[in-house]
Every structure is written in structure tokens, then in C-alpha cells.
């Protein structure tokens, strides 16, 4: 199967997908009610956003339309959240954000009955069930494929930022993992996870894709679980490293930060992507997963070690003008304040766990935060 052509889309347009947890209001375990919720959604023809199943029955995915600013994106996300929360009340279930469920065991999850999900389950075995993790995917529109590849590789340096800013999965199987984003550890286990190959043009990318399909390892772009991957049918690149935040507001703020960053990269072109950029990619990524903004960031060119926090603050200063142009300055200011005060979703989870003393109570608090924030 040949690679499809890259559809042009408006530069820096935004779209977001969020994977959400479906919880039992009795014990706040994941509950296999995706079918029930989707049936309820189907009975309301006029509903905001797009709402679809995900790989296991305890999760559901929402996605927005295309937006030029994060304000309208935030409004749409809020409308989808309110709509689904109404469904939740009628069906006695709760929804929440966060990258992992705090105490779910992978063995207790059920694969959603859909051909592709059964295929994934057959290929990957328990990894598929362990894939009951919840991420935010942000799409950034690109006018042309080569632009998209440039942006994709330039962004690799900033992937740790997105991980640190969104990290919301400190608990797995009822225990504190010590990670800000333990969710990404489940993604690494997939053989085709990681980074895209270092190519600069869409025709080179097409050659790579053809070689890979010839090996029989992949059939479509969907089989790559890269951190950033081009999405030719949308004309976007898709950043897939973020945990689903605890609130829709933070999800929109993350999109705004990324949008301003992309405008800076596309207009100022401060980076010429080269293969050596990826020397420390995995190390930096690990630091962000493990320690969040407290992690270390290594510059692949100079070998200089800085704190991720300082690098984010420095970047915020660099992209300020672009944020203003995109009407994203208020969102960036919120992110700045958070980083300066050392606040994060992962930290919030730990504080609630300490306050209430149990993982189910933490999940209840997450559900309330999702509903009310």
C-alpha cells in the first residue's frame, strides 16, 4: 500500500483528541460501559464534538473540530465534557482525565468489540490490554508535507516539555510509580513506538514507508506508535506524548503552548533538524516522564545540562510574541505560573492520594475535578 498524499491544511490550525476514563460510581474502578455511553450519545443526534470507542471498554475518545485559537477549542471541549457528564449522570457512571487509572489491573480490562481492536489485541497480546491508558493527541495543521516534516523534527527537542507539562499518571496498580507520566512506559513497549525516521521530504518519507510496508511489519500509518507522526489525510502532525490532563482547560492551554511554539519554529526557523538531534532524545524523554519539570534536559549539540523547568521558562519567553499573535498569551501565562510554582497534575494526584489515603478516593477526586473544573 502506497503512502497517501499529504492534504494541505491551514498552518497552525488546532485539533485535539482526548482519551477519557469511564468509572463505576460505586468503587471508581474502570467500568466497561463504553457501549452503553456510546448508545446514549447515539440517541442525541445534535451533540458537540466527535465521540468514538477506544481499545478497551473502560475508555472513550473525544475529538474536536478544527480551530484557529485555543479559546474556541476550549469552548468546544467544555461543551463535549458537559454533554458527556450529563450522559454519565443518566447512566450512573463518571468520567475523568489523567493518564492512567490509579488502581486498575490490566487483566480486568475488556477489549472493545471492533475488528481493528481485536487485531491489535491478537498481535500485541497483553500489551493491548495494558494500553488502557489515556492520552491527549494534539494536531497542528501544516500547509505542505515538507513543512510538516520540518516541524515534526524541530519539535523533537520540545517533546520533554509536553510530557512534563501534561504528566498526570503517577499511579499504576495502586502504587506510586515515582513517575510524572507512567503512562508513556506502556507506549514504549510497542515495537513501533519512538521517533520518526530523519527524512526531510515527503518523497523520502514515502520511500521509507514503502520499505516498511514491504517488510510486512506495517500496513498503514496507524501502525506507527511514534511520539509525533504525520497524519496525511488531515494535513497535520500529531503530537501524542501528552497524558490526558485532569481538566479540559489545561488540555486547551497545552494546545495553545504547542501552537505558539510551532509558530515560533515555522517563522523563525531557529533549528535545522539533523539526525544528531536524536542522540539524547530518549534520555531527555525519560527525564521528563520520571521527574516532570524537575527533570534534566541535555542539549545534543553542546552537551549542556539544564533543568527542564528553566528550559520551559526560557522557551516561554522566546515564543511570547507568537503567543500574543495567536491570542494564546493568557494560556501561556497560566502555564508559566504553574511551572514557576512547581504545580502539575501529577503533583495534584499525589496530594489527593495523601489527603484521602486511597486510590479509589483519588479517582473520585479526579472525576469531580473533571466535572467541575
Amino acid at each position, binding site marked *: 500500500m502506497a503512502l497517501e498524499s499529504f492534504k494541505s491544511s491551514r498552518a497552525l490550525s488546532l485539533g485535539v483528541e482526548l482519551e477519557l476514563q469511564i468509572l*463505576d*460510581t*460505586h*468503587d*471508581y*474502578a474502570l*467500568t*466497561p*460501559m463504553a*457501549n*452503553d455511553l456510546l*448508545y*446514549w450519545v447515539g*440517541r442525541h443526534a445534535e451533540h458537540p464534538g466527535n465521540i468514538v470507542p477506544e481499545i478497551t471498554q473502560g475508555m472513550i475518545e473525544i475529538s474536536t473540530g478544527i480551530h484557529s485559537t485555543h479559546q474556541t477549542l476550549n469552548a468546544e471541549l467544555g461543551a463535549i465534557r458537559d454533554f458527556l457528564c450529563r*450522559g454519565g*449522570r*443518566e*447512566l*450512573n457512571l463518571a468520567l475523568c482525565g489523567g493518564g492512567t487509572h490509579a488502581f486498575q489491573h490490566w*487483566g*480486568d480490562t*475488556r477489549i472493545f468489540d471492533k475488528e481493528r481492536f481485536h487485531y491489535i489485541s491478537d498481535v500485541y497480546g497483553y500489551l493491548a490490554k495494558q494500553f488502557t491508558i489515556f492520552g491527549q493527541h494534539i494536531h497542528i495543521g501544516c500547509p505542505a508535507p515538507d513543512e510538516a516534516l520540518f516541524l515534526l523534527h524541530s519539535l523533537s527537542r520540545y517533546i520533554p516539555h509536553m510530557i512534563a507539562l501534561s504528566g498526570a499518571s503517577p499511579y499504576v496498580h495502586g502504587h506510586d510509580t515515582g513517575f510524572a507520566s507512567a503512562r508513556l512506559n506502556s507506549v514504549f513497549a510497542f515495537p513501533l513506538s519512538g521517533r520518526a525516521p530523519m527524512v526531510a521530504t515527503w518523497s523520502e518519507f514515502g520511500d521509507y514507508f514503502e520499505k516498511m510496508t514491504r517488510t510486512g511489519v506495517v500496513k498503514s500509518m496507524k501502525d506507527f506508535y511514534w511520539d509525533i507522526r504525520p497524519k496525511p489525510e488531515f494535513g497535520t502532525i500529531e503530537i501524542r506524548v501528552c497524558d490526558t490532563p485532569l481538566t479540559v482547560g489545561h488540555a486547551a492551554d497545552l494546545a495553545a503552548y504547542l501552537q505558539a511554539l510551532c509558530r515560533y519554529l515555522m517563522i523563525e526557523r531557529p533549528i535545522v533538524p539533523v539526525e544528531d538531534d536524536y542522540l539524547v532524545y530518549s534520555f531527555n524523554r525519560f527525564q521528563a516522564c520520571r521527574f516532570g519539570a524537575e527533570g534534566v534536559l541535555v542539549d545534543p549539540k553542546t552537551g549542556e545540562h539544564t533543568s527542564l523547568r528553566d528550559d520551559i521558562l526560557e522557551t516561554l519567553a522566546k515564543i511570547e510574541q507568537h503567543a500574543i499573535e495567536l491570542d494564546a498569551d493568557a494560556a501561556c501565562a497560566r502555564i508559566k505560573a504553574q511551572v514557576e510554582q512547581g504545580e502539575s497534575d501529577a503533583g495534584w494526584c499525589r496530594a489527593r492520594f495523601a489527603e484521602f*489515603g*486511597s486510590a*479509589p*478516593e483519588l479517582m*473520585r477526586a479526579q472525576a469531580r475535578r473533571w466535572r467541575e473544573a
Partner: protein
Amino acid sequence: MNGLPSLPFEIDAFGRVALLLIAAIAGAEVCERWLRLPRLVGYVLAGLLLGPAVLAWVPPGITGDLRPLVLLGLGLLLFELGSRVDLRWLRHNPMLIVSSLVESGLSFAATYLFLAWFDLASASCAAVAAIAVATSPAVVMRIVAENHARGQMTERLMLMTALNSLYAILLLEISVGMVHLDRNAGLLQAIADPAYSAFGSFLLAAAMAYGMHLARFSQLQRESERFALVLAVVLLGTTLADRLGLSVPMALLCGGMILRTLSQRLHLFPEHFGAAGALLVIILFTLTGVALDPRQIAAGGLMSIGLLLIRGLAKYFGAYVSAGHGGLVPDKAVWLGVALLPMSSLAVLQAHEVAGLYADFGDEILAIVLGAVLIMELLGPVATQLALRRSGEAMPHRGEGEV
């Protein structure tokens, strides 16, 4: 030679109870592995087999001797069911109330008319119809636990079981009041008795729930102590309700519901009350089997079967009401009525009590009820399990059955 026991020695009560428990476990294994039936059918069958009606291997007084354990096991399941019911759900989805009222109302009306057609006394018909309204909380809770069921139908099954059990208790009180009226006991007594029982049970339930809330149950970290506290509350509720002439099941069901409504904090009971809870459940169902008498089927005969068919149809259509607009997938709604079929073993106690109160209640009608209960003790769990599996909400192969 004095120190050695003489053989063969008499098997004492302890030995016989042990035998009963072993038979129950063996029965459960046979049912699950070879017959693909719910384990608790095995418990009931073991009791039936060893009981006075067939082999008579258990001591005659066993149901009386172990009654406190039976009541405790039943009490725990009722209290747990109550705590699973969130009354706020009814406010957000009024179709649930409609469905519950239709299901219970239809069951009551259909069985009443069926019996009245055979010229049975109207107060007796009302009493039996009231008994027919209830779905067995014990069977539902146990089958849901055995199958690790979760989902929209399971949620509704528990909600509707709790509600129809409450309606049944109220209807039975009222029909007893009607008997009073029939015997010219005066309108005041006919109204006062059910009212006292209902309000009294509710107040006792509120006191139990508030007590647990004050004891900061939800913040107790040790699972064993949480279990002990629940046990204490259920024991207290049972004995107080009994002493005060209130309804024990109503007090426990409402107690659980009020606890859930009282505080947003999670009131998680140890999963199905752990090993001790499992033991009580085995005793509960085995002794239910011991109390059954197959001759009752012959006595109740076709009337029992007719009653069950009518009741089953009513439950089926009533449960279907919340499909579609009420948010339940039609594929699941067709199974909800089936899942609601188990008849309450409370019915046996209730029928005997009512019959004891009033001689003209009649052996005939008692036989109809007991025959129906006997059939449902065996078919009910099978129906509920089938419904949970067919609707895709059961996870039967998750680990061990118990925990």
C-alpha cells in the same frame, strides 16, 4: 480401653454441619465445572439433598440452630445491595422510576388477578402478589459477584432489585392490614401497623447509617476492621428491628441506601466480605436448600408454574420500559427482565409468618408460594447468570470465583 472411642461413633452436630459444608462445596464444583451452572445452585442442591426431604442427614434442628448465621449472611447481602444504590441516579434518570414502578406494578397486578381468578381470598391473593414482586437480593448480589459483572444492565439489576424488594415489603404489610380489615379489626389498626413498620424501619436505618458515618467507617484503613464494623451494624440492625417488630430487610436495605446518600466519601466494603462473608453465603444458600421440600412442587403444582409464568412476563415487559429513552441498549434490556426473575427466599419466611398469623390464609395458597419459591431457587440463579453473560456484562473467567 476407656480412653478410646467406641466405633462406630455417633456423628454429632458439628460433624453434620461439616458434612453439609463439604457437600455444598462439592455441589458448587459440580455445577460450575460440569453443568456450567452458578455455584450457588450447587449450595442449594446440596442442602436439598442432605435435608430432611431427601436423605435427612442433617440434624433436624439445624435451620433453627444456624438461623443467626443465616440472618447475618442475608443481612450483609441486603446491606451491601442498599449501599450500591445511589438515589441521586433516580433524580437524573426518571425513566428508572417509571420502569421500576411498571415492573413491580405489573408483577403485582398480574399475579393478583391470576390468583383471584381461582376464587382465592383477596387478602391472600394480595399477600402472594406482594411476595411475587420481590427479586431475591441475595441471589442477585451473589450471581453478580460470582460473574464479576459490571455494566449498565448490572447497575439497573441491582437498583431494581433493591426497589422491588422495598415495594414488596410495603405491599405485604399493607395486605396484612387488609386481612385485619377483613376481620373487622378496625381501619386504624389496618393502617397503623404497616405505617409503624415502615417508618420505624426507616428511622432505624437512618440511625444505622448515621452511626457508621459518625464512626468514620470510610476512613478505616484495615479491611478486617471495616468488615467487623459492618458485621456489628448488621447484627445491631437485625436484632433491634426484630425486637421492635420492624422489618429487618427493610431496615438493612434502607440503611445501606442512606449510608450511600449521606456522604460522598466511598463506603467500600471488603470485596464481597472476604472469606468470612463467603462462608456466611454458603451457609445461607445451603440452609435455604435444607428448608426446601420437593413435595411442595407437587402440592403447588400447575398453579405455581402458572404464577411464575405470569410473574416472569410482567417483569420482562416492565424491565423493557427503560430501554431506548431510558438509556439502556435494547439488546441488554431484553435480558434485564430475565435477570430479575429470582424469587426472594425471604418469601418463605414471609409466607410462613402470614400463614401463622391467619389460619384462613390457607394451606393451598401457602403451597403455591412454596412451590414457586422452590422452582425459582434453582432456576432463578441460572436465569440471572444467563442474562449477565448474554448481555456481555459478565467476566466469568476472571481469576478465582470468590475474590
